[in-house]
C-alpha cells in the first residue's frame, strides 16, 4: 500500500482549504483574485495586466500537499516547477515555503514572502518538509508553498503564459 497525495489550495483569511476532503486541486492558477480556480477558467476573467510602469502581481497563491492512506513516514518533501516556459522572458513566478501561513490575507501587491524565483530543478527545490521533524505517523500536510506571478511593464507578449508543471517529491516508508 502507499500514501495518497492530495494537492490543496488555500484562500481567504482565515484560510479556507479547497477542494474538499478526498479531492485534489486540479491547478494552482495565478490570477487577480484570491480564489481557487476550480473550473480552470477563472483565470481568464481575472487576468494580471501589463502595467505602464513597475509591476503587477497575481494574488499570492497558497498550496500544500496532504497525504492519506497507508504509510509509516513521509519525509524529505520537495517542490519545484518541473517544466514549462513562460510566453515572455520578463514574466516571473516567485515562491517560498513556510510551516505557518497566517497573514491578514493574501496580497495582490508585491509579496514580501515569496520573493525568489520558483526553483526549476529537483536539486534546487523548495524543502516543504514540516519543521516538526518531518514525518507523519498518520495523515498529514507538507509546509505551505506560496507562489506569485510577477508581470512587469517590460512584458511585450501578454496573454496566457501557458501551462507550467509543478512537482512534489517525497520519501516514504
Amino acid at each position, binding site marked *: *500500500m*502507499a*500514501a*495518497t*497525495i492530495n*494537492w490543496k489550495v488555500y484562500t481567504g483569511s482565515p484560510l479556507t482549504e479547497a477542494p474538499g476532503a478526498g479531492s*485534489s*486541486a*486540479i*491547478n*494552482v492558477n495565478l490570477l487577480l483574485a484570491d480564489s481557487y480556480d476550480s473550473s480552470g477558467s477563472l483565470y481568464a476573467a481575472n487576468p494580471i495586466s501589463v502595467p505602464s510602469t513597475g509591476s503587477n502581481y497575481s494574488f499570492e497563491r497558497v498550496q500544500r500537499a496532504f497525504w492519506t492512506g*497507508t504509510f*509509516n*513516514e513521509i*519525509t*524529505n518533501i520537495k517542490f519545484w516547477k*518541473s517544466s514549462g516556459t513562460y510566453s515572455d522572458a520578463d514574466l516571473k513566478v516567485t515562491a517560498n515555503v513556510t510551516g505557518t501561513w497566517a497573514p491578514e490575507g493574501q496580497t495582490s501587491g508585491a509579496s514580501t514572502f515569496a520573493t525568489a524565483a520558483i526553483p526549476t530543478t529537483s536539486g534546487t527545490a523548495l524543502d516543504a518538509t514540516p519543521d516538526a521533524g518531518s514525518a507523519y*505517523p498518520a495523515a498529514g500536510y507538507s509546509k505551505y508553498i506560496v507562489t506569485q506571478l510577477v508581470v512587469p511593464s517590460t512584458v511585450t507578449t501578454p496573454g496566457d503564459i501557458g501551462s507550467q*508543471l*509543478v*512537482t*512534489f*517529491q*517525497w*520519501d*516514504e*516508508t
Partner: protein
Amino acid sequence: MTEEFLWEVVFKDGATLKQFNPDGSENSFKKIQERYNEVTCFKLISNSENFEVNLLNGCFTLNNQKIYFFEPEDKINYRLIFFKRRTTVMNSTNIFTEYWLGWQTTINGKNEKRIMRISNKRVYFTEGG
C-alpha cells in the same frame, strides 16, 4: 497504487516479517524501525527480481549477484537505509517510484553510505557520507 516491490526482513533471531501477512493485512515499516538494531537482512521482491542487503556483512545481492564494498569478514556495524522516493506532478494520477535500499556505517569516525537505487528497471549505486 500497486507497489512494484514488496519488502521482507530477517531479524537476528531468524524471525522474518513480510510486508503482507497471509491474511492480506499489511505490516507497517514501523515494525522494522522498532527492531532496527536486530535487522540482518532486508529484501525487495517483485515478480521477476530480487534485491537485498545483508547487514551482517554489507553484501548487496542483485538477482543472485553479490556485491561487496568492504571485506565481508570485517566487523562493521551496518545500519539499514530504506525508503521509496515518490514523484508526481499536479493533476496527474501517475506517481513515479524509486526504491532506495542500502546501509550506513561509521568507519574511523566517518559516516559511510552505500545505497542501491532501483529506478525504471535500472539499478544505480550511490556512495556518500
